[in-house]
């Protein structure tokens, strides 16, 4: 049994010894370094650029401006190619611009012999700007007559808009209800803060091919987009992904790769590196969209939730990046949670002069779940019903139909998650014990979520796997899916070990993806990899097992069907499960024979490309207890437990790690993380890790993680998604706990002292 047990991560030793090599640890002789010239204004036209002084600095090799780069516009979102042009991402970027659309937009780039010189020269590039009106607010950006941020796209700053009503009519749901609650909610702009900054370098090996080494989540998509940006055949680009120091969605965008490819191309194939500073990463790459939402929830006295409606306005900043997909996906992922209630969803996404928003762990779902779970809480309270009980009556059950996708929920463990959480957390006992008066108050909160396990049917879901029996009997596996820190390689090896029947220690997974070598997969996003790759790996392992046993049968003169693999040996199938079966042939001897017999056999390999045409919802919930210091307007997380239905758990230890990390990020988003932008100038005020508060060790309590294991038939091993889901429900649970403690419904994030002060003052608490 290799599934369901915690194996040591394949990369653990490499990482604790410092031997794991990330992009900046590789380097090349003669590497040039590039630095952007960034606009100090959030909205302005470039009137003139004087590069003479920069070019005169010793060590500077070149300066490029918008006049030097291809005219074509490209889209940066790390989505699979869409055969339907209507599904294509918004192509609104050029490599450099003469129209700055956010504070830090890229107007020129300098290449020098070292990074210090490049950055110094960047400051010597003289740019004259003509200021344009700054649009910070998405509502203002959509107002009649607002200045256009991308005038060529049409007469509005709207990028996308859609609406659906699932499970009936909201008007009827409101009519049938005994109580209706309403709320206006806002969420803040979060930054990924992956510890490894954005970095990439490129070089040429001949006259036509460009090699890019990059810290990316999506090497195969990156290849296509870099080629599109430069107008090259896609195979002219080769992308290599070494170890990646975290991405959380930021690196599901093609941020640096087209530029380094352009620079090496212009510099005769010389290696050129572009590594962003932390300050650039914070403000000039991608962020989580701030949402403004208006919602209603309707319920009957008997505890039936009849409907939830939500109107969303998403602020994507100066460029589309993932565009309207975030607001669209956020609504879609939540539709499975309360399938017997109407879910009415309308969303718009607008350009503004904010920093550019893209994918960030949860992909719109944290914002939408926040609104839904605040409204559901308010409805439970309006009915005078226990918050857990109300949810238990309304959440999804197996066999029901998701009203949005019309697909049957084969697995839905949310009832069990809530029940398990209620018991483990001692919900009723703790709720009764909370002191809700005085300066120091306590409260408990709960929130649920549903999420997806892939992006189907919005995008294709393709995974590739290749396995090779080595000369010594070990197995090398290559997956197109990428390890970015989440433990994908280890989970994949566990899956292969399970199907092949071999020891986990037989497997080596090639962690580096190389688009010239590795099978095709679209990459690490949407919590899709374990789910989508599992079917490819299972089929590939079955193929390899069949070929190994066929070779064994030939060597042993026995029918292949009578043989099986166990540990590192070929055994009789009938003895496969026995305590100590007799070894008929070692895998090592089998491999040597197969490789080197002069008359027959050969290298034993298997390769599978698999398309998944399913997207099983996963579920979960958060239980939390908080303490509020009312005069200081500060809240502290006393305890927090997440319970997940992610199908069968491949590695319990790594799963707990995903939950604790996601929850910590969720606590940060809920309580204090906020990229601050001055609304008049569009200037970013806290583009560093001192002024932008990331949770530190003392900020995070011990986080509880528990699982309800369902067996999802569409997952290769009964598994569903887990990577992003832990971040979805902590924020509303914390808001609901604050409401429980103080009676104040604070419907804006973050729940920081500056926010609580306004709400507590308005409520008469101060």
């Amino acid at each position: 049994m290799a599934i369901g047990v915690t194996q040591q991560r394949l990369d653990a030793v490499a990482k604790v010894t410092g031997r794991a090599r990330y992009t900046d640890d590789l380097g090349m002789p003669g590497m040039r370094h590039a630095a952007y010239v960034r606009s100090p204004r959030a909205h302005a036209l470039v009137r003139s650029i004087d590069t003479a002084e920069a070019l005169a600095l010793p060590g500077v090799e070149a300066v490029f401006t918008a006049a030097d780069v291809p005219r074509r516009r490209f889209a940066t979102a790390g989505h699979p190619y869409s055969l339907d042009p209507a599904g294509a991402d918004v192509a609104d970027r050029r490599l450099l611009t003469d129209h700055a659309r956010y504070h830090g937009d890229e107007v020129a780039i300098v290449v020098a012999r070292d990074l210090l010189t490049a950055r110094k020269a960047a400051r010597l590039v003289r740019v004259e700007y003509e200021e344009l009106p700054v649009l910070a607010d998405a509502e203002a950006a959509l107002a009649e007559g607002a200045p256009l941020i991308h005038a060529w796209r049409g007469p509005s700053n709207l990028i996308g808009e859609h609406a659906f009503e699932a499970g009936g009519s909201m008007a009827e749901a409101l009519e049938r209800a005994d109580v209706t609650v309403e709320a206006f909610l806002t969420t803040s702009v979060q930054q990924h803060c992956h510890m490894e900054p954005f970095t990439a370098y490129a070089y040429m090996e001949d006259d036509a091919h460009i090699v890019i080494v990059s810290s990316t989540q999506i090497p195969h998509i990156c290849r296509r987009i870099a080629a599109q940006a430069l107008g090259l055949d896609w195979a002219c680009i080769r992308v290599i992904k070494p170890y990646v120091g975290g991405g959380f969605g930021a690196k599901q965008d093609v941020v640096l790769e087209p530029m380094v490819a352009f620079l090496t191309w212009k510099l005769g194939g010389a290696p050129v590196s572009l590594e962003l500073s932390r300050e650039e990463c914070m403000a000039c790459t991608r962020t989580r969209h701030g949402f403004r939402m208006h919602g209603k929830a309707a319920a009957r006295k008997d505890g039936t939730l009849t409907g939830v409606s939500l109107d969303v306005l998403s602020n994507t900043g100066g460029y589309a990046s993932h565009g309207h997909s975030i607001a669209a996906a956020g609504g879609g992922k939540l539709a499975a949670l309360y399938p017997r209630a109407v879910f009415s969803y309308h969303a718009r996404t607008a350009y503004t002069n904010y920093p550019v928003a893209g994918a960030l762990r949860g992909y719109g779902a944290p914002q939408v779940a926040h609104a839904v779970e605040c409204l559901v809480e308010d409805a439970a309270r309006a009915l005078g019903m226990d918050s857990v009980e109300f949810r238990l009556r309304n959440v999804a059950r197996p066999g029901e139909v998701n009203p949005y996708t019309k697909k049957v929920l084969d697995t839905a463990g949310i009832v069990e998650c809530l029940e398990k959480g209620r018991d483990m957390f001692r919900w009723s006992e703790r709720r009764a014990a909370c002191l809700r008066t005085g300066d120091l108050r306590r409260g408990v909160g709960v929130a649920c979520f549903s999420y997806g396990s892939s992006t189907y049917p919005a995008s294709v879901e393709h995974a590739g796997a290749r396995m090779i029996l080595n000369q010594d009997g070990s197995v090398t596996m290559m997956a197109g899916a990428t390890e970015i820190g989440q433990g994908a390689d280890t989970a994949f090896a566990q899956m292969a070990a399970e199907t092949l029947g071999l020891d986990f220690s037989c497997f080596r997974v090639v962690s580096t993806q190389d688009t010239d070598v590795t099978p095709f997969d679209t990459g690490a996003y949407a919590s899709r990899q374990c789910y989508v790759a599992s079917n490819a790996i299972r089929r590939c392992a079955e193929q390899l097992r069949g070929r190994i046993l066929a070779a064994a049968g030939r060597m042993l003169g026995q029918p292949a069907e009578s043989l099986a693999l166990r540990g590192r040996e070929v055994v009789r199938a009938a003895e496969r499960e026995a305590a100590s079966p007799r070894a008929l042939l070692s895998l090592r001897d089998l491999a040597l024979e197969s490789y080197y017999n002069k008359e027959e056999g050969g290298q034993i390999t298997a390769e599978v490309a698999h398309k998944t045409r399913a997207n099983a919802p996963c579920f979960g919930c958060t239980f939390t207890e908080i303490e509020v210091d009312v005069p200081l307007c500060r809240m502290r997380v006393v305890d927090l437990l997440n319970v997940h239905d992610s199908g069968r758990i491949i590695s319990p230890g790594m799963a707990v790690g995903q939950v604790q990390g996601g929850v910590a990020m969720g606590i940060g988003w809920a309580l204090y993380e906020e990229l601050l932008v001055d609304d008049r100038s569009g200037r970013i005020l806290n583009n560093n890790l001192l002024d932008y508060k990331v949770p530190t060790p003392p900020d995070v309590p011990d986080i509880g993680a528990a699982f309800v294991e369902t067996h999802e038939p569409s997952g290769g091993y009964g598994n569903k998604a887990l990577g992003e889901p832990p971040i979805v429900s902590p924020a509303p649970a914390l808001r609901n706990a604050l409401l429980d403690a103080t009676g104040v419904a604070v419907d804006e994030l973050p729940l920081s002292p500056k926010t609580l002060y306004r709400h507590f003052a308005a409520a008469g608490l101060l």
Partner: protein
Amino acid sequence: MRQTVTCTVNGKTLTLDVDVRASLLEMLRAEGLTGTKQGCGVGECGACTVLVDDMPVDSCLYLSVWADGRAVRTVEGELRPDGGLSPVQQAYVDAGAVQCGFCTPGLIMSSTAFVERHAGKRVSREDIRRGHAGNLCRCTGYGAIVDAVERCLKTKPE
């Protein structure tokens, strides 16, 4: 301007000609010790933590010339003489405290100093958290890291 620096790095004496502007981080990485990472370059994240005379410092803020006459320890030097992992490295592996691994070398060095300073003493999980407050990790939520340090302190030294 350049200057000669003589220091020990992971027990080996090195004499290097360095640019006086270079940080200790830059000096170490130029020597091929790329295990130490740069996460911010301005002392905010702790990814570049190394030990100077057994004290954790952000090597991005510590000038290479200041290392003259001192003993520097990096993650590469923590292996035992037989090539096995140090108790802290092993505890990180066992506790599942490693995800993307970019903060790991710096955290290993902070934990190493913490464990050496607190050997034989009673420490709470809160003490461990405060003792690692200078190191950011975005993947783990710190729980497994605190577990790893706790295990080290509970295990009697060999």
